[in-house]
């Protein structure tokens, strides 16, 4: 499909090539990803100006927490994709349960992150400490807010799925929300190695 308008109902498209979810959510996802792309590139180029400082302070980050959070988001994404599959089989109960599990993974992510922030802020680190911490806090916090938004969406999907709103005939709403949740995962998959590991 080369038509970028939001006017075309995805259901009208031939099933061979189908964009899951609503076109509007994909436009939105792309804009969000563009914002993160600019942020990632800014980090990388700012780092090239002062590699030693970035490398030094990168060591102070909690890599275990970061890696564990990756596992949580990946698993959360996995649950949600399984929920979409269940909805397509008209199994609303399984779908709702898996959305709930995905939500719990998100909650786990936030918990780990809160402990990580507490340790950093407790050590007196702030946005103004240095450029590395400025990026570390800005990037992870911007992502943190996206996890929260993703969980709000999952909560809505959970309620609607339990009401049987999605099934083999129409699961656009669920697919749209799921796509957003996967984006949150995708962004972290780049963010984690970039900020925590790569040197």
């Amino acid at each position, binding site marked *: *499909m080369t038509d970028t308008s939001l006017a075309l109902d995805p259901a009208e498209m031939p099933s061979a*090539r189908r*964009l*899951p979810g609503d076109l509007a959510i994909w436009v939105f996802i792309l804009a969000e990803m563009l914002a993160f792309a600019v942020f990632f590139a800014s980090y990388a180029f700012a*780092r090239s100006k002062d590699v030693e400082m970035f490398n030094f302070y990168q060591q102070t980050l909690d890599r275990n927490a970061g890696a564990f959070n990756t596992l949580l988001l990946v698993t959360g994404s996995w649950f949600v994709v399984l929920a979409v*599959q269940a909805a397509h089989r008209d199994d609303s109960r399984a779908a709702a349960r898996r959305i709930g599990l995905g939500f719990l993974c998100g909650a786990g992510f936030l918990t780990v992150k809160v402990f990580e922030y507490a340790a950093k802020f407790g050590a007196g680190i702030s946005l103004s400490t240095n450029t590395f911490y400025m990026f570390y806090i800005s990037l992870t916090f911007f992502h943190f807010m996206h996890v929260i938004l993703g969980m709000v969406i999952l909560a809505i999907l959970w309620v609607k799925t339990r009401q049987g709103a999605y099934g083999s005939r129409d699961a656009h709403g669920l*697919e749209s929300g799921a796509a957003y949740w*996967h984006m949150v995962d995708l962004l972290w998959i*780049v963010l984690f190695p970039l900020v925590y590991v790569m040197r």
Partner: protein
Amino acid sequence: MSALFLNPAHRAWLILMIATGVTWWLGEVGAAGTTAIVALLAIAFAKGRLVILDFMELRGAPLMWRLLLEGWLVVVSSLILLAYWISLK
């Protein structure tokens, strides 16, 4: 076990978990320099691609959308690589 291969989501999940472990391990051993950077970016790229194709389920989507999302991965990793390459010089 066969379900693992029948459902692309299961397969993607397993690979993503293992790949995350590898990234973590590279951090633990303190891998640094060109090889480590390229390896980490390659892993991130492969992981991102799995999320796009099997979680977002864009494998069967119109080509434009696959290209847009995968293109994002290409652009982001290239920019990061470029910046790190500059810093290595």
